[in-house]
């Protein structure tokens, strides 16, 4: 243990000379941390024992400004230390771990950690940790008046160029807080014209929502995020939540009355993406006409008569074996089946199956929510939209690490219909990302991006879902019925591979060009279905000319896995998936979001999982890593161009509403 004796008071050169206490039982990490912190010109005290750390802190809590602690320590749990430090000394604590599991990160947040870093720690991350000290001071000075989410500051995601005068920063924050305090607590009227959604904001949001018992699933979009962010600012989210809770209960009867067959459509509606959801959502009554009427988006355009027919076919079909594709309608049937599967309370399967609905729901905003509520309630607790972190996590297609709350609105809906409780925690913690548009930056229209996101979902979901969760992927195919028909053969092939875990990838409908192709191509060696692969590739060509292929990430992962995987059966893909997704989400195909070496560590977990899972994982969901420590530049976007997208959504919602 080394102690830097030059404590004194907080100096004027803050953040230089900030006094940090580092606790880690691993001597290598401790030494590295110490050296890095010294390089950042902080005063460092290190100890390998949590007990000693507490002793030092209790001696004089003014000796330190910040504590960095490992999560796994032999003498005391890191979370316990975190709690104690927070209670007794009220110092900011940063957690450190080699294991970035979403659950752990969530646990850290809920225990009050300011930040959660993954090993190996990089100096860039340490350079910014002083902001937690500043923030804590400002928060403490105003804690009486602060709302749950005091972190509306814009400093969260980016390093603020403070002139080293913490007071100045504090004044800025105070002013912002004053402004915010004027606002209604419910934020029904936002006086601010802009919300810069930062990592901290998001984190606090997550914490607040979780306190309310609502799981948050959110998506991050690289380019679309701007628009979706606009749609999903807090005010709207809250309104949306209210609506959902009201509508869900109201619509439950409707759904029940119209029969269970409607549920799949509801699901499908969501899956269809922004444009399609409104049309699909609601009930089986949405026929082609509805769909056509809503075809204002590119995606909607895809919904043509055959698709509509497909829908009807689905409703009429009874139980359809998941994964068995006898006809074009298979995906739809699967969805139906999925729906039914959900009913028995196959939570896990369901959870994984439906991340996308949330996304679309978001787009649909209120309208979509209504339907989702219906669906969930109709499903009698089936977790139709448990955009469980698992699925959505895997959905990342190299998406940016931005967090949007697209899926958030669904949470209340889901909760309603699912008394069994959403086992999201089991899946992947509460932070699932449905990345709608990871690598789809080129997409001209947001709807197209959604579509692609949807596409990616099935891929992700397919990997996760075993026999039960085929529907998830199938559901997503709903919106792209037009190309589903084209790809029916591929789908048939996909679904044919149900025998082993690999089949989960195979199940991924071929209709999802980018992701699926990647998965397929990567899974092909193991599945020995070259024809499938070829088909996917072919389909991909026609489908996504513009879409860049985020395959290098997955390919890398896949090849690595192939070479590394020790052979073993996978009796429980679910848990695997959790692991996989958690790690994969870090794995951004573009490597943009993922924080440095975290990708290495996290992606390596993929190795252990099956290829398909890893392949699916390539869609990388932004995981908690992203949540905690995301790329700062991405975090601060402002809602400045609500414009056409919102109008479109509103219009669609109106339409749907009229029809319901």
């Amino acid at each position, binding site marked *: 243990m080394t102690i830097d004796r030059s404590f004194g008071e907080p100096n004027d050169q803050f953040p230089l000379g900030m006094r940090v206490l580092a606790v880690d*039982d*691993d*001597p*290598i*990490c401790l*030494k*590295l941390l110490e*050296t*890095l912190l010294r*390089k950042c010109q902080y005063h460092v005290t290190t100890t390998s024992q949590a007990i000693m750390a507490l002793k030092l802190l209790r001696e004089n809590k003014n000796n330190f400004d910040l504590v960095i602690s*490992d999560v*796994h320590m032999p003498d005391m749990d890191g979370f316990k230390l975190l709690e104690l430090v927070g209670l007794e000394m009220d110092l900011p604590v940063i957690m450190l*771990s*080699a*294991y970035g599991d979403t659950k752990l990160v969530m646990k850290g947040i809920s225990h009050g950690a300011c930040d959660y870093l993954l*090993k*190996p*720690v*990089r*100096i860039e991350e340490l350079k910014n940790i002083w902001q937690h000290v500043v923030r804590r001071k400002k928060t403490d000075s105003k804690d009486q008046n602060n709302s749950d989410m005091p972190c509306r500051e814009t400093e969260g995601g980016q390093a603020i160029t403070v002139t080293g005068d913490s007071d100045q920063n504090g004044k800025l924050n105070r002013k912002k807080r004053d402004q915010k305090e004027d606002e209604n607590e419910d934020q029904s009227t936002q006086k601010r014209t802009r919300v810069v959604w930062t990592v901290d904001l998001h984190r606090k949001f997550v914490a607040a929502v979780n306190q309310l018992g609502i799981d948050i699933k959110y998506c991050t979009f690289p380019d679309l995020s701007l628009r979706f962010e606009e749609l999903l600012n807090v005010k709207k989210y809250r309104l949306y939540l209210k609506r959902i809770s009201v509508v869900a209960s109201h619509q439950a009867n409707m759904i029940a009355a119209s029969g269970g067959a409607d549920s799949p459509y509801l699901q499908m509606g969501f899956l269809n993406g922004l444009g399609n959801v409104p049309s699909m959502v609601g009930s089986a009554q949405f026929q082609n006409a509805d769909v056509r009427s809503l075809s204002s988006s590119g995606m909607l355009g895809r919904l043509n008569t055959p698709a509509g027919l497909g829908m009807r076919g689905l409703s009429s079909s009874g139980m359809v074996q998941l994964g068995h594709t006898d006809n074009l309608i298979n995906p739809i049937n699967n969805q139906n089946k999925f729906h039914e599967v959900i009913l028995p309370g196959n939570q896990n399967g369901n959870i994984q199956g439906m991340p996308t609905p949330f996304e679309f729901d978001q787009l649909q905003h209120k309208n979509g929510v209504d339907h989702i509520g219906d669906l969930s309630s109709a499903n009698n607790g089936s977790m139709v939209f448990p955009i469980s972190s698992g699925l959505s996590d895997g959905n990342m297609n190299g998406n940016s690490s931005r967090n949007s709350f697209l899926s958030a609105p669904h949470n209340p809906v889901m909760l309603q219909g699912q008394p069994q409780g959403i086992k999201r925690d089991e899946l992947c913690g509460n932070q699932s990302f449905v990345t709608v548009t990871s690598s789809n930056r080129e997409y001209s229209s947001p709807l197209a991006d959604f579509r692609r996101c949807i596409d990616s979902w099935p891929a992700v979901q397919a990997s996760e879902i075993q026999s039960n969760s085929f529907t998830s992927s199938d559901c997503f195919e709903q919106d792209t019925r037009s190309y589903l028909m084209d790809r029916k053969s591929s789908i048939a092939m996909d679904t044919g591979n149900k025998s082993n875990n690999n089949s989960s990838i195979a199940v991924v409908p071929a209709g999802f060009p980018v992701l699926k192709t990647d998965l397929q191509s990567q899974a092909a060696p193991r599945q020995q279905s070259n024809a499938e692969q070829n088909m996917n590739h072919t389909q991909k060509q026609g489908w996504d000319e513009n879409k860049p292929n985020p395959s290098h990430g997955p390919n890398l992962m896949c090849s*690595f896995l192939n070479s*590394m*995987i*020790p*052979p*073993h*059966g*996978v*009796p*429980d893909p679910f*848990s*695997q998936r959790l*692991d996989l997704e958690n*790690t994969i989400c870090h794995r951004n195909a573009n490597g943009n979001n993922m924080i*440095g*070496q975290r990708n*290495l*560590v*996290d*992606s*390596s*977990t993929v*190795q*252990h*999982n099956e290829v398909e899972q890893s392949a699916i994982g390539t869609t990388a969901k932004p995981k908690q890593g992203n949540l905690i420590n995301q790329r700062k530049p991405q975090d601060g976007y402002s809602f400045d161009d609500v414009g056409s997208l919102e109008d479109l959504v509103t219009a669609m919602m109106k339409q749907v509403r009229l029809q319901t």
Partner: protein
Amino acid sequence: MLGLGADRLRADMNRLLAFLFHQGVLDEQFLQLQQLQDESSPNFVSEVVNIYFHESEKLLRNLRGLVLEREFSDYKRMGIHLNQLIGSSSSIGAKRLTNICVAFRAASDQNNPTACLRALELLEHDYCYLKNKLHEFFQIEQQRVMAAGVRYPIQN
């Protein structure tokens, strides 16, 4: 002439490093370690790496004991060891070892003894390889320092 020797040795070092990078054995975290080495801590990298070897060998011994146990059921302890190994391996930039450990951890999470055993063997094998290569690296480094220090100031 001595200066030339130092340069040649430095070139050897770089070549070895590049080779290890190319193989995926090391990653840029190792470079970060090197950047932290300066006049105030001239042997930082070798110190850290030596600590790493020391600790890892302990962990590997424990792991082997756990895996080869007759009952072989203490996955939890295995997970703890692995967590530490992952943390330290990734901290020094031993990418391949980290990945194997992660796979190992996943196997242990699934209570799969066969996979664990295999991962352990892979781990031990790669660990030996890494250790040899890094020893070699430090030897060249030492020679370089000596060669450069004789007549010229140490240049990093």
